[in-house]
């Protein structure tokens, strides 16, 4: 139990250091095990996150910007998925705070994982949709019920003008 945890943790920590650099185009990050108390119990163990965006020095997580936080959290999730792939992953607007450059890096990371996990992504960003195999457009009918259309990428401009 404990050995399995430490092995998985080690693998995810290595992957996170890489994924973070890819998604930020630089910088560095790490995961650290912390211990409260002297026992060997798993309950006393905690996981700390250190994140240093490119060009900046190591600081408390609290100082990160909105977009940096989203990207760091996404990097950690993707690192876990690389080590322990789950069959599918549903993401609801996790790219909302990202600027255009970071949406492109987020999209590339998603692209890299799609062969091992299936993704369902709710998004307002055109950049993220570019790698989608299928697109569903949802709209509210005047009968207060949702209606759904299967869309093609080239139809988006006309059918979904609300995209950024």
């Amino acid at each position, binding site marked *: 139990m404990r050995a*399995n*945890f430490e092995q*998985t*943790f080690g693998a995810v920590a290595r992957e996170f250091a890489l994924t973070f650099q890819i998604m930020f185009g630089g910088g560095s990050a790490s995961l650290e095990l*912390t211990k*409260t108390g002297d026992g060997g119990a*798993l309950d006393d163990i*905690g*996981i*700390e*996150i250190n994140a240093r965006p490119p060009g900046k020095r190591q600081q408390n997580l609290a100082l*990160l910007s909105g977009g940096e*936080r*989203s990207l*760091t*959290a*996404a990097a950690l*999730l993707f690192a*876990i*998925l690389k080590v*322990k792939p*789950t*069959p*599918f*992953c*549903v*993401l*609801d607007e*996790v790219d*909302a705070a990202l600027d255009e450059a970071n949406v492109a890096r987020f999209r590339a990371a*998603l*692209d890299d994982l*799609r062969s091992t996990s*299936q*993704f*369902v*992504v*709710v*998004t307002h960003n055109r950049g*993220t*949709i570019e*790698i*989608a*195999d*299928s*697109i*569903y*457009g*949802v*709209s*509210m009918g005047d*009968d*207060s*019920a*949702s209606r*759904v259309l299967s869309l093609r990428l080239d139809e*988006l401009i006309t059918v*979904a003008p*609300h*995209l950024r």
Partner: protein
Amino acid sequence: MHLKRLEIHGFKTFASRTTFEFRPGVSAIVGPNGSGKSNVVDAIRWVLGEQSQAMLRSRKSEDLIFGGGSKRAASGFAEVSLTIDNSDRTLPVAFDTVTITRRVTRSGDHEYFINRAKVRLRDIQEATATLGGSYTIINQGLVDNVLDLRPEERRRLFEDAA
């Protein structure tokens, strides 16, 4: 293992039976504010056995049933079915294709099915435990939650994944 189809009928804003076909790879869901995108995410959570009202953005199970509007009557029930390709037997169910169905009526009756066989909620939760839903379904606004957790809470999340 991958999701094949999601059918939503009477759940939140999906008054009419609505079908999503998911292929391996990336499926995107887009639309204006309030159109029903997050409701689709809620439907996936719910059919996999989610019980937390907070995670479903509701206060009571009746909130999950289409409440009607000025031009359409409320629904009497909410039903969601998720069809999964299980050829690799990721789910401990002896079928290549597994359909999980969850249904609730306005009078409060709850029903659960796996490939049309009536089961209990626990059976669904146990069958889908390996899917890691606790960390692989990320609700709107919650992506950076992991950064605010205490170290011990983060470890617990990690244990689910590991």
